[in-house]
């Protein structure tokens, strides 16, 4: 089974799993989880340097940037302007013009403000950014983001950090069918089967943070996710059997002894 490579904006990624760098018990454990996950792209947040306390070691000391592509996000931004400003700073702090674009619309759900998101996407694309917007599972919003020049669309499976799994599989499937850019399920995954389901629906990749960082054993869960993504993708490509209401024997019905 030969799969097409996972390409975003002309860049090929070896893994269809993209993971975060937040909420880990320690930077050291994060590094081991990253290693175990097989991911070659990680998201990071852009925040003010802590002036008063310089002791804290740098996140980047624990990311092997030779094999990991860094994707700055605009998490926590509630307006297009905030997100644009943060994206620009992220570009300077890093070495790429990629951004995981978040414009949050509500504190409790952290669902996106699609209007502002589309607007910010248009601005950043004009400035030469490779924009990967976090949106909800709305096929129309995804189409508009694509039309605005997004390099991929990243519909949520469930609220960020909720671990509820893919709440509306039908929408993810529809988004995949109509999108011309990669579809990456971002947020909501809680365990391995959730990631496999996302891939079986046709998602090109899955982005997750809390499911791994918040597990009792992040390294083991990272390994679990690596397998789930590969397994789910292969299952999607393998042509699964149809669902039937009744049974169909897997052993021959003739040739029984004594009949």
């Amino acid at each position, binding site marked *: 089974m030969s799969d097409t490579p996972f390409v975003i904006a002309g860049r090929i990624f070896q893994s269809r799993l993209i993971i*975060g*760098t*937040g*909420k*880990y018990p320690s*930077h050291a454990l*994060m590094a081991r989880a990253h290693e175990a996950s097989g991911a070659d792209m990680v*998201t*990071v*947040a*852009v*925040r*003010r*340097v802590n*002036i008063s306390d*310089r002791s804290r070691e*740098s*996140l*980047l000391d624990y990311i092997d940037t030779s094999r990991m592509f*860094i994707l*700055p*996000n605009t*998490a926590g931004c509630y307006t297009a302007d905030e997100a644009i*400003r943060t994206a*620009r*700073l*992220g*570009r*300077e*702090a*890093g070495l790429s013009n990629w951004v995981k674009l978040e414009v949050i619309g509500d504190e409790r759900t952290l669902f996106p403000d699609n209007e502002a998101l589309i607007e910010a996407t248009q601005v950043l694309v004009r400035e030469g950014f490779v924009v990967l917007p976090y949106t909800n599972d709305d096929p129309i919003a995804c189409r508009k983001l694509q039309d605005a020049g997004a390099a991929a669309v990243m519909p949520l499976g469930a609220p*960020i*950090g909720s671990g509820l799994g893919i709440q509306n599989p039908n929408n993810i499937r529809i988004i995949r069918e109509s999108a011309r850019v990669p579809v990456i399920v971002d*947020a909501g995954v809680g365990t391995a089967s959730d990631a496999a389901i996302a891939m079986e629906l046709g998602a090109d990749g899955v*982005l*997750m*943070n*809390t499911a791994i*960082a918040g597990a009792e054993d992040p390294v083991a869960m990272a390994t679990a996710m690596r397998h789930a993504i590969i397994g789910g993708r292969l299952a999607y490509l393998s042509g699964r059997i149809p669902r039937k209401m009744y049974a169909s024997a897997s052993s021959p019905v003739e040739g029984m002894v004594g009949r």
Partner: protein
Amino acid sequence: MQITLNGEPYELEQPLSLVALLDKLDIDARRVAIEHNLTIIKRHRFPEVVVGDGDQVEIVNFVGGG
């Protein structure tokens, strides 16, 4: 003289270049991005851009996020 550094008031004896400011703050220039009075300053311009009284400076870096 005083500037606003990452949202907080900060005292300076005299104007400083961004390089000098980072040096004073013991911050590795290669790991941060700087916004000076709402304008982003490219890293290669850190030596020439000078921070003076009343300026607003934002110094950011990458932290863990999802």
